[in-house]
């Protein structure tokens, strides 16, 4: 019995099939598990283990290395405020403090209503609009306390549902197309190209030798 919803299970299987080795799908599958559950539940971890040919302990051990994976439940919106050097110079620490008071939760904690989890992040690579704020890993570009508060009201009222979808970095990443040729065909193509290239190299060497003999 799959813990994943049918659509997520299907996407998971498609992802596994993309890689030469199934374990390579680990990080994308963990993103999918978070998309469904909001965090990495025991059931989600077990399913990822089965899909990648690993054990739940191995999956948990891998996931714990990465900041974006939550091993405990988090709020509907994960708010990240950057305080790294470019944002620090622009008031990132002050904005983080303000965010904590607006959202009513400490850094690293979740608000009582379960809506918000606040995180202090490292550089998010958007330093021309510092301090940088992401919600569910979407740039919201609110650099002042006033615009931050307005953004939070918009979130509460559901006005940002399109811009800030649920967790899961891959929620709108849909692969279409792909390589529909057999491994044998590819091998034949490569062999042909290599033979042609070897012939070119030999011809060039022969021409060079002839030039030298003249």
């Amino acid at each position, binding site marked *: 019995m799959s813990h994943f919803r049918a659509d997520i299970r299907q996407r998971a299987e498609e992802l596994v099939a993309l890689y030469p080795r199934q374990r390579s799908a680990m990080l994308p599958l*963990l993103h999918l598990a978070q998309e469904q559950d909001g965090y990495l539940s025991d059931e989600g971890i077990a399913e990822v283990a089965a899909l990648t040919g690993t054990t739940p302990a191995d999956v948990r051990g891998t996931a714990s290395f990465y*900041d*974006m994976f939550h091993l405990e439940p988090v709020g509907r919106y994960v708010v990240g405020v950057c305080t790294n050097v470019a944002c620090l110079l622009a008031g990132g620490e002050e904005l983080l403090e303000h965010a904590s008071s607006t959202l009513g939760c400490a850094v690293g904690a979740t608000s009582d209503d379960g809506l918000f989890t606040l995180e202090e992040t490292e550089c998010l690579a958007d330093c021309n609009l510092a301090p940088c704020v992401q919600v569910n890993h979407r740039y919201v570009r609110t650099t002042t306390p006033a615009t931050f508060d307005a953004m939070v009201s918009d979130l509460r009222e559901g006005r940002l549902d399109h811009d800030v979808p649920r967790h899961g970095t891959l929620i709108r990443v*849909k692969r279409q197309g792909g390589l529909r040729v057999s491994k044998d065909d590819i091998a034949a193509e490569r062999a042909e190209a290599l033979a042609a290239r070897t012939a*070119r190299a030999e011809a060039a060497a022969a021409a060079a030798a002839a030039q030298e003999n003249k």
Partner: protein
Amino acid sequence: MASLDAPRIVSSRRDVADSFTLNRYLETGGYVALRRALTMFPEAVAAEVDKASLLGRGGAGFPAGRKWSMLRRSPISYLVVNGDESEPATFKDHYLVERDPHQLVEGVIIAAYALQVTQAFIFLRGEFALGLERVQQALNDAYALGALGSKIFGSNFSLDIVVHPGAGAYICGEETSLLEALEGKRGFPRIKPPFFPAVTGLYGEPTVVNNVETMSNLPWIINNGGEAFAALGAGRSTGTRLFALAGDVKNPGVFELEMVKNSFRDIIFDPALGGGLAEGRTLKAFIPGGVSAPWFGPDQLDTPLGQDEVGALGSMLGSGSIVVMDDASCVVRATWRITKFFSRESCGQCTPCREGSGWIERIMYRLEHGGGRLEDLDLLLDLCDNIAPGLSWPPQQTTICVLGPSIPSSVHSALSMFRDDFVAHVNHGGCPHD
């Protein structure tokens, strides 16, 4: 005066609306270079990139052509594109993946053809949710167009590209760590030697790893020739480069500039670029190439933006990000935050980095927040010396990867340049700026 005449090579669609869509890309010359490349022999495509003398744009600045030629002796299995951009204050790849994903994809296909690789991966940091969507859409479009997949544009070359999300770990920008993440493991950098994934890479097979910006240069190089690219810049630094300017300037942003022809003064102060500092402020210091780089002061403002030019003065152009600090900013606080970053992002394999980064961070914390002691200043240098013996540049290494030896850069710079500021923190019992 800034020199702004060079062509825009990777940011030519900067002012084009919807520059990420296939139609706009085709209207502006997209996929012409790929068609041309497919009419050339693969080794001729590689030779063109060699002629361009394109230095890798990720941070280490290794010649891309040489990375490729190391493989030409044995067939290469995989091409992996490094889009894990996480060096603090670096945001050029962010621009490229969100605003010009097709250019990246076309570059990857050209590189794969030159290397005769049939499987490529584009690794993007997980925080680029929109970038992941745009690159996947570009791949979908390319498959539909016939520019990707089976028998590309009717040629005898087939290629599959998979976009792979990271999950929030700075260290995955280190290429062997990135490969571990791509294999579904914790992002631990691999022990060297072998130094190059070209020898032992993904799944132990020969692999080329190139940066997003490096790949994005390829369509222009094929369209205009490697010599035209090499004619720009000077010395080893050819072509143009994206510079990410952040911190205390009026107009922070990403600017494409010809290598060497402009100086730090140009990019920081030119009205068309950084626009200078806020009214009444003066420059205190700047970081020339990501937080792993030793700092520069006002005396180095006229240094040209070139790899060897910056290297000769004991720092690096690195990831192309410049952080400006004005006279109102607290260098102790900035240094504390940078060491906190390294402490948090250390993968934990090597003792000097794992323990050293934490010790340095705690000492920096007490200096900034009260409780610092005068002897802390020498203690900091002693700790730094244990991580990178001699505190030279390029640094000596006691660790598996270069994250460790990057930690002392800011501490050593700040202490050498602004020792009085540290002493003032000790005497004041915390930050005098607060």
